């Protein structure tokens, strides 16, 4: 009740100050009148009574002040006054304010964004209970990590004494992926095969249903599956009745036993949506031969330590097992564990490949934040030097030192706040850009979001540094200092500081140069790369990956051919349907698809030309294609003919070879009509070269692998699945996508279609990693350039203030404005020159690291270097201009009089 009154009265005082003041004045006035009247009633004259009252009460004004100054709202009011004064100050020095805010925003924003991206990967604990007890266990092959076999798993599980439990899972190469069929569009799902205790080891349990049971993880065990929360929501609308019901996966019935919680972050295979048990065959482990799947190294292993067991104890324990084979657990040569086992925390394991790069980025960011701080310090110092006189006047007029300090703190805080707000905006944009641009394969990408802790840290660092700087001039000079400053500006400490500050500015420029040179080189590479001719025509080209899913498509021993035939039948009927779509001009299918993310090894096969004899087998790139594939792709025909409808299974086998291959194999002959084996020595069929086609790029625009062979699927022993469909359209290829998909599903609605993408887009994504690095460098480079410019400006402003007297003397002695202008600009350019020289040395060294990212340009490309030097020089000159201009305007009579 009274608290309410306390607040409301205070607010009234704050917002209706005039009314309140009037009321106080009226009350005091009344008090005075009553006192006068009381005096008059004692028999005094009016005049006497007034005098007596005044003598008793005293001066009315201080009383009014005293009554007025009561209440919390007064502290607020003073603060608001300070704030508005500070805002006025900043408005009056717009240049200073804008530059400081930009500096702070860039420093805070960039460092927060990068730290937010790096934090979940390197630092923040994994989202599992006691994550430090989780260890990855690896086989060793030539010192590097390698997969393990089920047999090894069973041995370690039985013999170890340090782990609570150990789980295995497949290496995530897509073998566990399945097609979900049934109601709606068939969907290819990323699956993960796991041992029954996988979730228990991680320490998570399903939010609905029950975890896998040991009885389900046996050979020919029940077909059960666990779904991710997002899959459950997407495909089953979050219906809880799904538990215990069956779904069709790859043509077989599976029972859903559980749903994982939405918070479950499966860091070991983040994109998996469905889990099934491994179901290894234990009997194979006692069979005496090492031929079955159970003996192959294809598993990843994660274990949870017993409480209180240290990592080194576990390492010792497993090393001991590895070095002492037991007859109970026979080991094949590849599972001998002779090279020992590698144990690593899950976190380090995830970051292992990218740690150096990330650490480099963190280093750059720390540097950036530091540079930003230095700049703010610089700017504030220069500014305070300018304001010495103002402070001195205020002190002389009776402002207490505390009051002046408070004013300074308010101003610095206002600046920090503005910079912080802008920094938050920069950070938000930066994080979104990072996530959007990040290359595939960056671990824990879904956990990347703006990190409030990082933001607070960056804000705090810059603010504290700003505050210290803000207070430094005031704290440094005792009361007398201000008086002294009335007469002349203090020069005692400035000389010392400026050496350090100038060194930092030089560092900034050097850093900016290195980053800009790298950016320039990458930019050139990118431009050259994207102008590289892929060898085919990517315009109006739509691509998609079509799977076959179902038992009839799975090759099964002893005869694989029915499955291959079934696949080919489906693909042929599908492509015919596609060709009937109105917007489609040409369509074909093939494998591998150029410039796609098809695995590197896909399509590598043994090829032997007749002229070379049986020993002349070479490993070459082989494209399996359908008729119209080359036409749809726009691969040019150099001589002979394309593969077409003639080349049936019963016709003579025909092949196309690429231009480069023709040139290297038949430099002086016509290659048409020459014969070759494709598919290694096992295949004794002769293929006849019927045509020569242009070279194309396979994995990347940067890689040159021009030698290739093309054969038709009808004349091949195997038909791969999935295959890529390529469709040349008359209009916008993306617009035709759904018509094409529907055409394929009109043949079989149960077959999934994935990675639907235009070829233009595909080429763009194929250079994603290079682009990511480029954008990162470009962003850092421009930030560094801005900061360096601000740094030069700050240092020169400071030095102009310091040298005001000197400049005045020079001017008085007859130095022209140009001479003074030159003096200051030369000073700034000297700094820039030293920085550029250092930066050049750095760039020569550091660009060696990025050699692999460059394309078609030398890392010492003179144009890039000259361009960057010119850019830096120009920016530095501009940064010099303002202080130099101010110096040239110094009026000698004023400066000298001030002495």
């Amino acid at each position, binding site marked *: 009740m*009274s608290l309410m*009154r306390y607040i409301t009265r205070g607010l009234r005082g704050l917002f209706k100050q005039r009314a309140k003041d009037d009321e106080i004045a009226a*009350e005091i006035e*009344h008090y005075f*009148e*009553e*006192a006068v009247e009381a005096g008059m009633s004692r028999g005094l004259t009016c005049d006497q009574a007034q005098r007596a009252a005044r003598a008793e009460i005293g001066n009315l004004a201080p009383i009014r002040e005293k009554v007025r100054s009561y*209440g919390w709202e007064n502290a607020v009011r003073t603060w608001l006054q300070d704030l508005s004064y500070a805002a006025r100050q900043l408005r009056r020095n717009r240049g200073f304010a804008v530059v400081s805010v930009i500096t702070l925003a860039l420093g805070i924003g960039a460092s927060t964004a990068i730290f937010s991206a790096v934090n979940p990967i390197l630092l923040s604990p994994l989202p599992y209970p006691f994550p430090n007890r989780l260890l990855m266990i690896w086989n060793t092959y030539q010192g590097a990590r390698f997969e393990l076999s089920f047999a090894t798993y069973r041995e370690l599980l039985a013999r170890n004494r340090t782990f609570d439990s150990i789980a295995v899972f497949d290496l995530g190469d897509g073998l566990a992926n399945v097609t979900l069929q049934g109601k709606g569009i068939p969907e290819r799902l990323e699956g993960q095969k796991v041992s029954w205790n996988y979730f228990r080891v991680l320490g998570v349990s399903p939010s609905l249903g029950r975890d896998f049971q040991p009885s389900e993880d046996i050979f020919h065990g029940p077909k059960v599956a666990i779904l991710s929360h997002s899959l459950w929501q997407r495909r089953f609308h979050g219906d809880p009745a799904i538990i215990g019901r069956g779904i069709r996966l790859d043509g077989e019935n599976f029972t859903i036993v559980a749903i994982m919680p939405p918070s479950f972050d499966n860091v070991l295979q983040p994109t998996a949506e469905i889990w099934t048990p491994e179901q290894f065959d234990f009997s194979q482990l006692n069979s005496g031969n090492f031929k079955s799947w159970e003996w192959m190294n294809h598993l990843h292993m994660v274990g949870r330590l017993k409480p209180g067991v240290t990592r080194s104890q576990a390492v010792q324990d497993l090393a001991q097992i590895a070095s002492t084979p037991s007859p109970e657990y026979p080991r094949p040569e590849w599972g001998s564990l002779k090279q020992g086992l590698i144990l690593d925390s899950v976190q380090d394991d995830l970051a292992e490949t990218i740690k150096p790069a990330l650490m480099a980025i963190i280093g750059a960011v720390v540097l950036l934040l530091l540079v930003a701080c230095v700049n703010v310090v610089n700017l504030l110092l220069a500014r305070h030097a300018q304001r010495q006189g103002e402070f001195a006047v205020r002190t002389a007029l009776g402002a207490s030192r505390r009051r002046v300090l408070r004013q300074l703190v308010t101003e610095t805080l206002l600046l920090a706040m503005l910079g912080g707000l802008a920094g938050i905006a920069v950070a938000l944009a930066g994080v979104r850009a990072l996530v959007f641009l990040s290359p595939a394969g960056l671990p824990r990408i879904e956990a990347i979001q703006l990190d409030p802790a990082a933001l607070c840290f960056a804000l705090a660092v810059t603010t504290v540094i700003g505050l210290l700087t803000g207070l430094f001039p005031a704290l440094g000079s005792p009361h007398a200092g201000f008086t002294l400053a009335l007469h002349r500006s203090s020069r005692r400490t400035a000389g010392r500081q400026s050496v350090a500050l100038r060194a930092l500015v030089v560092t900034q420029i050097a850093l900016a140069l290195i980053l800009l040179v790298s950016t320039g080189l990458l930019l050139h590479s990118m431009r050259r790369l994207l102008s590289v001719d892929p060898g085919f025509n990517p315009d109006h080209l739509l691509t998609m990956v079509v799977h076959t899913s179902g038992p009839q498509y799975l090759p099964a021993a002893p005869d694989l051919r029915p499955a291959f035939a079934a696949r080919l039948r489906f693909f042929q009927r599908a492509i015919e349907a596609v060709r009937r779509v109105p917007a489609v001009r040409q369509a074909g299918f093939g494998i591998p698809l150029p410039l796609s993310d098809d695995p590197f090894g896909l399509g590598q096969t043994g090829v032997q030309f007749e002229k070379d004899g049986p020993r002349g087998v070479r490993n070459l790139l082989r494209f399996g294609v359908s008729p119209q594939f080359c036409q749809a792709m726009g691969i040019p025909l150099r001589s002979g003919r394309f593969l077409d409808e003639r080349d049936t299974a019963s016709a003579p086998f025909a092949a196309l070879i690429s231009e480069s291959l023709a040139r290297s194999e038949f430099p002086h002959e016509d290659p048409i009509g020459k014969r070759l084996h494709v598919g290694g020595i096992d295949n004794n069929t002769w293929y006849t070269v019927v045509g020569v086609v242009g070279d194309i790029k396979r994995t990347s625009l940067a890689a040159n692998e021009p030698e290739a062979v093309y054969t038709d699927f009808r004349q091949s022993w195997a038909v791969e699945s999935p295959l890529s469909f390529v469709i040349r359209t008359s209009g916008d290829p993306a617009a035709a996508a759904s018509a094409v998909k529907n055409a394929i599903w009109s043949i079989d609605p149960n077959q999934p279609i994935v990675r639907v993408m235009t070829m233009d887009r595909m080429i763009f994504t194929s250079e994603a990693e290079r682009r990511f690095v480029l954008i990162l460098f470009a962003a850092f480079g421009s930030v560094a350039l801005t900061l360096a410019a601000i740094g030069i400006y700050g240092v020169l402003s400071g030095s102009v203030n310091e040298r005001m007297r000197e400049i005045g003397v020079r001017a008085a002695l007859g130095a022209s404005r140009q001479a003074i202008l030159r003096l200051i600009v030369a000073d700034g350019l000297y700094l820039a020159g030293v920085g550029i020289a250092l930066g050049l040395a750095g760039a020569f060294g550091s660009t060696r690291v990025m050699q692999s990212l460059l394309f078609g340009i030398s890392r010492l490309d003179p144009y890039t270097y000259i361009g960057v030097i010119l850019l830096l020089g120009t920016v530095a000159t501009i940064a010099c201009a303002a202080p130099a201009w101010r110096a040239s305007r110094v009026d000698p009579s004023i400066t000298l009089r001030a002495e």
Partner: protein
Amino acid sequence: MSAGYRQLSMNDTNTDVIQGTLDMLILKTLSLEPLHGFGISRRVEQITRGVFKVNPGSLLTALQRLERAGWLDAEWKQTENSRRAKIYSLTRAGRKQLELETADWNRRSSAIARLLKAEI
């Protein structure tokens, strides 16, 4: 407490209100009847026979504070001599506060009295 006290000077008869008692004096005065600022000041002086004189700055500040604490109500009214004055009156909470402070004061003053007696 922010009640103001003039610096004690040697040649001045001390009429300052004892520290911490101004609130109690005001509350007590107002418990007799609602009054304006000058009225309170005069009444305190009269009742204490001039021992205490209330400084108007301190008084008006204290009145503001007490009002904010919810112990007083204030209202602008016409006085008998037809001036507009801010008249303060005691609220229920103020009455309770007065009782508390009175009890507290009695406890303290009797303790001091006992102490002084013991010394003599």
